[in-house]
């Protein structure tokens, strides 16, 4: 299955309606997009997905981490090595 948002071909079915199988859920392992096969075509069809919201490897690589990851404090690194 192709991810409608980032076109990754590894997207896969992860769940279906527990009562009656009336819908299925799919998930993309790259951009974590999750969608239901019964949603609007603008959500489920890669060709109709709003281009402003499309993602790709370059866009993901350029994203900022929120919040930024701080450096590990020196005293904690030492403590880890000492096993304390």
């Amino acid at each position: 299955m192709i991810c409608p948002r980032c076109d990754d071909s590894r997207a896969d079915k992860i769940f279906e309606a527990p009562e009656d199988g009336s819908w299925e859920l799919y998930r993309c392992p790259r951009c974590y997009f999750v969608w239901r096969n019964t949603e609007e075509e603008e959500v489920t069809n890669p060709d109709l997905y709003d281009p402003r919201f499309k993602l790709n490897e370059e866009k993901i690589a350029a994203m900022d981490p929120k919040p930024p990851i701080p450096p590990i404090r020196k005293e904690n690194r030492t403590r880890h090595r000492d096993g304390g």
Partner: protein
Amino acid sequence: MPYGSLRDFLVKAEEEGQLLRIKEEVRPEPDIRAAACAAAKIPGGPVLLFEKIQGYRDKQVVMNVHGSWENHALTLDLPKKTTVKEQFHELAKRWDRYPLPAKRVTDAPVKEVILDKDFSLFRELPLFRVNPQDGGFYLSKACTIARDPENPENQNVGIYRIQVKDHDRLGIQLSAQHDLAAYLRKAEERDIPLRVAVSVTNDPIVSFVASSPLKYDEDEYAMIGALRGEPVEVISSERGNLDVPAGAELIIEGEILTRQRSVEGPFTEYTGSYSTSMLQVEIKVDLITRRRDPIIFENLYTGRPWGEIDYLMALNTSLTICKQMKADFPEVDAVNAMYTHGYCTIISSKMRFGGFAKTLGCKLLSTPHGITYPKLIIVVDEDVDPFDLEQVIWAMTVRFRPERDIAIIPNAPASTLDPAHLVRGLATKIIIDATKPVFPDIPLSDAGLVDLPEETAYWMDEIKKRMEELK
């Protein structure tokens, strides 16, 4: 009698004619979002209870709990016709009862079912996409609980947007200024784990306080107690020594995956715009506790204002700012920071002397919330109800002199979510003084204000009563 859970509140809402049961089967998308959006756009709009969700036999969805002033009044255990200004002043009184600490219990329905392996969040909750371009299914009204790793007595309960990314994986947005982000920074600097619990479907007063901008070391549970008039009941999480609301429907427990980030979003924010996708924090879920089925899943529709989120963040934000301003300027009567989370804020106050409105505008801009959010600040006299926009606009038309009464502060700190930004995080602020000029300023030349006829209040009650009788 305060509520103990959302279920208690729903009983009251139904008695008061503010609960609408949607009995027919609805599709997760787009039915729930459309109905929730509509309910909040209707003045006096009801709480919606969706009894049958396509694909689930044992789940229900509740929307629009805070989404009208009538619902809002009922969540505070007030008569449903209580005006906004009356709700504000009642909350201001209750606020002063802080702290009223939580009461610990050892048994609660939320522990009826405990799942610690092979669970799926998609099975446990009837999740749905809130807006079409959201990056996934969101818990938009769940409360997240964590403890400060340096000072564990410090516990935070806050509403953060949460994306369900897999059966046992959540994404969570932590902005630098929020308490949980401070906890995370401490945990990441020490390279130690950080446990969290996510409480789904709560007594409405819990969500109300969890979305208030309280100070870092203030105890949300003790504020919930103050506002409801009795201690709120909490129960221990299964792991990690967290206090979770005993009245919750379902609790998700897990650990933040520290020192890593992954794609999250977009999600529709209170501005009425989608935020961008960013690399954000993830939670690995290892345990779920819940009531027996049927589970009620309460969620929040966010879209183009006005909507439920505007009601939810209205009086708690306004009141926090008002208390902070009053500490230095007791003449402040009320603050309305309801519009786009305070992007427009209206202050009503007595005036000490000419030009004092500008002093108040600057004071607002130095409160914790006021540093960033307000862009358009309007100051009115105490005889103008800041929650009544018709009165505010009237004051602007007859008391405001543009050549003297505007102050502009260019390039000041601003909300990073403002879609109108030129530089993200900066905005130009404008203070509008719509008060009557007082000494030493030049008084208005035609200042003979007409009072309301003395018996207007009597007749208002009388007419309302007789109108009710006509029904």
